[in-house]
């Protein structure tokens, strides 16, 4: 039974980790490009989750598979993400990191409280998305959908990495944080690149929402902020700005959380995650896969 519990925990951890990783990708891309913690990113997941809540019944009644609702969710999240960027973030760009951080915080509060006004404070139950069988493996009952989640996460990460490394747009994305002015001189439309980054990040948030809702079928207005914070921890842990780092960080945070919950102290698992963040920031602020940058005197 010990082994079964262990395997179960590993699979749960990877599932949880894949969700964090997908969210962390959004943080890491935005931070990598404009050095801003997009606090509202977590709330994009909430937006995605509520969209799923409303569209899945429509999909089912139209006789289509439930997971197709994610397309609507992606569309909604991209619209919200890009709107937030253009309306709130763009006007304050270049006014310092403090202003950017507060604006991001304000947008997070705005989305959360808007959701509160629109959808009410009561949690909503999302209908089942995947109806996949469970598999018995060495005495452990495994949900195949968890493996699916992990698979989706891995595929997206690889695609994203290829996109950033190989395509022209991806190269432009890497050029902008190096030197904004030089990028402009090279004919890169900086604002367009930033908006595209937000669009991709928000789209990923919608996918993360799908995966989250298939594991925990309920949505609340504050689901985004805390999950977002943990995903941010994952991004920092892996090395902010690094796509493989986000994936790695996400999996580490997911596994640690599940293992602490199961084996060590169920009431303390959140504290452990935050403690981990503090240690990483103090010991190696650049994260596992990141590079150190100092200030020039």
């Amino acid at each position: 039974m010990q082994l079964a519990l262990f395997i179960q925990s590993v699979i749960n951890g990877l599932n949880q980790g894949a969700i964090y990783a997908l969210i962390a990708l959004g943080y890491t891309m935005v931070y990598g490009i404009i050095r801003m913690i997009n606090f509202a990113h977590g709330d994009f997941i909430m937006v995605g989750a509520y969209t799923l809540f409303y569209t899945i019944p429509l999909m089912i009644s139209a006789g289509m598979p439930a997971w197709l609702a994610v397309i609507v969710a992606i569309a909604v999240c991209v619209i919200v993400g890009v709107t937030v960027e253009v309306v709130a973030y763009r006007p304050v760009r270049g006014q310092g990191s403090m202003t950017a951080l507060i604006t991001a915080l304000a947008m997070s509060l705005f989305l959360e409280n808007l959701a509160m006004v629109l959808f009410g404070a009561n949690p909503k139950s999302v209908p089942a998305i995947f109806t996949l069988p469970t598999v018995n493996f060495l005495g452990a009952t495994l949900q195949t959908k968890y493996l699916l989640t992990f698979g989706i996460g891995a595929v997206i990460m690889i695609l994203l990495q290829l996109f950033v490394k190989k395509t022209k747009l991806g190269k432009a994305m890497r050029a902008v944080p190096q030197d904004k002015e030089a990028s402009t001189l090279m004919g890169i439309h900086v604002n367009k690149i930033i908006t595209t980054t937000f669009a991709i990040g928000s789209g990923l948030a919608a996918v993360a929402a799908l995966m989250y809702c298939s594991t925990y079928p309920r949505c609340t207005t504050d689901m985004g902020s805390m999950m977002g914070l943990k995903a941010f921890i994952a991004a920092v842990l892996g090395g902010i700005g690094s796509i493989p780092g986000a994936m790695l960080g996400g999996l580490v945070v997911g596994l640690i959380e599940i293992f602490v919950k199961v084996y060590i102290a169920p009431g303390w698992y959140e504290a452990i995650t935050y403690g981990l963040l503090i240690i990483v920031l103090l010991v190696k602020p650049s994260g596992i896969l990141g590079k150190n940058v100092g200030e020039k005197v």
Partner: protein
Amino acid sequence: MNVKNPKKHFIAYLINLAGVLVLFFLLMGLFKSNVLGARTAYLMGICTTACYTIVMVTSLNILVGVMGEFSLGHAGFMSVGAYASAIVTNALADAGLPTILLFVIALLVGGVASAITGVLVGIPALRLRGDYLAIVTVAFAEIIRVAFCNFEITGGGRTMSGIAKLSNFYWCFWVTVICVTIMYMFVRSRFGRTVKAIREDYIAASASGVNVTFYKVMTFTFSAFFAGVAGAMYAHYMTAMIPTIFNFNYSAEFLTEVIIGGTGSLTGSIIGAALLSALPELMRQFSTYRMLAYSIVLVLVMIFKPGGIFGTYEFSLTRILKKLLSGELFKGKKKLTDEMGGAAHE
């Protein structure tokens, strides 16, 4: 500031004290005369809320406005003060101490406990700056919250109730006045000056002989102390509390009030905290829209007036009196400096 003539300053302090006394007696008259009838108690409650919110927001402004660093975990320090003071007053409940003494003990215990936490958090955390520091303060506040949810002595995740009701509006008013005065004196001293220098350029500050780490930790601790005092006021006014109240959103609320009021302006913090905590209470039906409105105002402030509504402006009773008494005669040096400070901030 004309430091060569302390006498002038003492007169100014006395005038300000008189102003505070007038405000106090006005409020006392309002409440004691029962003009408002049944709503008196309700209004007093709002004013008490305003008191500890003012202390929280002002102390946070010491970090945000004066030191130029974020804390997104200020509610964590408040909870340390609240729980520490509540535990101590519970233990002293049967000692037969007079209420006022017990209340003072509670405030000091809350402040000191929070200050100690401030040192412990500050020494590692303040090696970071900007975004990362903000995130680490959230992390510490969350750890504190999780700890209080797990400790048996703090209710083990359930509501901790039955805390002695020690504070009322009148006492909270004076505690607030004292706290704000102390913070004002801190800002207008070599300490505040040095911390401002660190905010402007920490490399230049250390090249001017300033021990940057020491002053940062000191300011962080100073700020945490008052958050703890505010927590003690809260605990002994509410008499019941649960750790989940002191969450990220509560911290964010304080930060919002600091920013809207004006980073670096204690006046802004006081007015911001007082209005923002009182207004939604007065308009109950809109309370669900409160944070929504906050966030919109916050974005607008960031876009159009990043220094906050008051900027770095400080209200001065003496200045107003002088102006009233002698027209434009006293448009002295100090005012010029303030105006330039305000202008520079924009």
